[in-house]
């Protein structure tokens, strides 16, 4: 038994410092209020404090840290998108990811696996070639490979997929990776906390005060705060927060479900995605198969799960990997995805002065956590949209200038 454990057992006080400072009350005023204590909100707080010297900041979280979509995604990190705006943005994110463990002094279990987007049809193969060319143009490792390369990387796969959806090729993206999602929120949270940012959990925002087109304060279940700047980073609840400031948006909410199997011996190194079969799969460090599918087919603002989901997903999994027929599903869950018409996020300044939006993160938000924190903290600090997010602003809809990222959504939603 380690000596520390004995010492903890005999002491009234916990001698080890907590990961986060506990704050009993909200202050009456902050320079910046961030709504949402997930990866995006905490990353923005971290970079505001570290890179811009703004530390009089509070992060308000209705539940617990990283309990929203940060803790509900399937942890895939990649940058092989379709539009130049998307590719540049996600590539910067992948670069940031690679140094994050050192930055935090916390092991994120960042694991570089390689990522295959399987093509079962000529149309999918065409999109793969298009994406590969866009990616290569921006210096990102991305290429179209034949079925034999897929077989080599995942020898257990049935290349004919049960005979009805044979794999014709794949888009291969070597930097594709997975990471431990909770640790990302904790790492950013601790980094922000050490630099003076206040994190308030179980604090629900009830309203936002706007006077003369400017943000003046935030009302919460623990008291009112006056502030001139509010950043909204609340996946799945964005429309509710936008209603508080009277902004209309194209965001609509569908649940996205996922599940994991019981742990099994390591047999799958790469991350595999199949648009036609609506499956994405990777094996975690613990041996669980982490699996996701497409969005639920209709709008729901809750994190309920359905039985249809594991039933349908398992059937497609067995098309690809028939030998899994005896492996059990251990748990399933859902997150609320902020969907947008062009499958790109909505970020930056808004018509309400001092109100900044980091939303519309649909099913693609986890991989963007670091770069969202970087660009949104810049945007909030300078009241000017960062260069990397100018293609993602809310007014692109009013101007009929959509960004068109749909072809790169990992699964045909």
């Amino acid at each position, binding site marked *: 038994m380690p000596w520390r454990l004995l010492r903890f057992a005999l002491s009234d006080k916990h001698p080890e410092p907590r990961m986060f400072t506990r704050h009993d009350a909200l202050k009456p005023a902050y320079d910046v209020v961030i709504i949402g204590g997930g990866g995006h909100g905490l990353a923005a707080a971290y970079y505001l404090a570290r890179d811009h010297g703004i530390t009089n900041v509070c992060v308000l979280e209705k539940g617990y840290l990283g309990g929203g979509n940060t803790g509900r995604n399937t942890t895939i990190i990649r940058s092989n998108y379709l539009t130049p705006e998307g590719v540049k943005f996600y590539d910067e994110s992948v670069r940031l990811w690679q140094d994050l463990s050192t930055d935090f002094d916390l092991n994120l279990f960042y694991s570089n696996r390689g990522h295959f987007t399987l093509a079962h049809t000529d149309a999918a193969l065409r999109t793969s070639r298009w994406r590969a060319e866009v990616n290569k143009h921006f210096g990102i490792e991305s290429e179209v490979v034949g079925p034999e390369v897929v077989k080599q990387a995942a020898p257990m796969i049935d290349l004919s997929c049960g005979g009805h959806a044979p794999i014709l090729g794949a888009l291969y993206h070597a930097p594709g990776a997975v990471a431990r999602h909770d640790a990302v929120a904790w790492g950013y949270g601790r980094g922000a906390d050490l630099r003076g940012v206040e994190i308030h959990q179980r604090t629900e925002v009830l309203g936002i005060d706007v006077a003369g087109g400017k943000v003046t304060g935030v009302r919460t279940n623990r008291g009112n705060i006056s502030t001139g700047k509010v950043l909204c980073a609340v996946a799945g609840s964005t429309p509710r927060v936008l209603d508080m400031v009277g902004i209309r*948006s194209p965001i609509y909410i569908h649940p996205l479900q996922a599940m994991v199997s019981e742990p099994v011996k390591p047999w799958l190194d790469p991350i595999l995605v199949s648009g036609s079969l609506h499956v994405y799969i990777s094996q975690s460090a613990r041996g669980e198969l982490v699996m996701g599918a497409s969005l639920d087919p209709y709008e729901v603002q*809750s994190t309920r799960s359905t039985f249809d989901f594991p039933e349908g997903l398992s059937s497609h999994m067995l098309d690809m990997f028939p030998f899994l027929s005896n492996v059990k599903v251990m748990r399933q869950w859902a997150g609320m995805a*902020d969907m947008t018409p062009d499958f790109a996020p909505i970020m930056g300044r808004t018509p309400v002065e001092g109100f900044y939006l980091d939303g519309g993160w649909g099913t693609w938000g986890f991989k963007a956590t670091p770069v969202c924190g970087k660009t949104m903290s810049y945007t909030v600090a300078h009241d000017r949209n960062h260069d990397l997010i100018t293609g993602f602003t809310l007014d692109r809809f009013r101007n009929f200038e959509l960004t068109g990222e749909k072809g790169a959504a990992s699964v045909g939603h």
Partner: protein
Amino acid sequence: MKIMTCPVNGPRAISEFAYGGEIRPMPDPATCSDDAWADYVFNRNGSPGVKREWWCHTPSNTWFVAERDTARDVIVRTYLYAGDN
């Protein structure tokens, strides 16, 4: 399996139905402003609540109206469309 009631065919599994989005009045594209048109084309009411939605029973191609609580995923009632009045 969730059950939805088609006004013509009765209770059926939800997998037989297709979701068509919230019922929204369309402005006249010939006379409305670009902003009003963009608002109609793109913007949605994304907050939870009881909404009137288009649904289709796909085997019989019956379009109808469902009132549904989107926060709890509960179907309140379904009926055939009889104009907006």
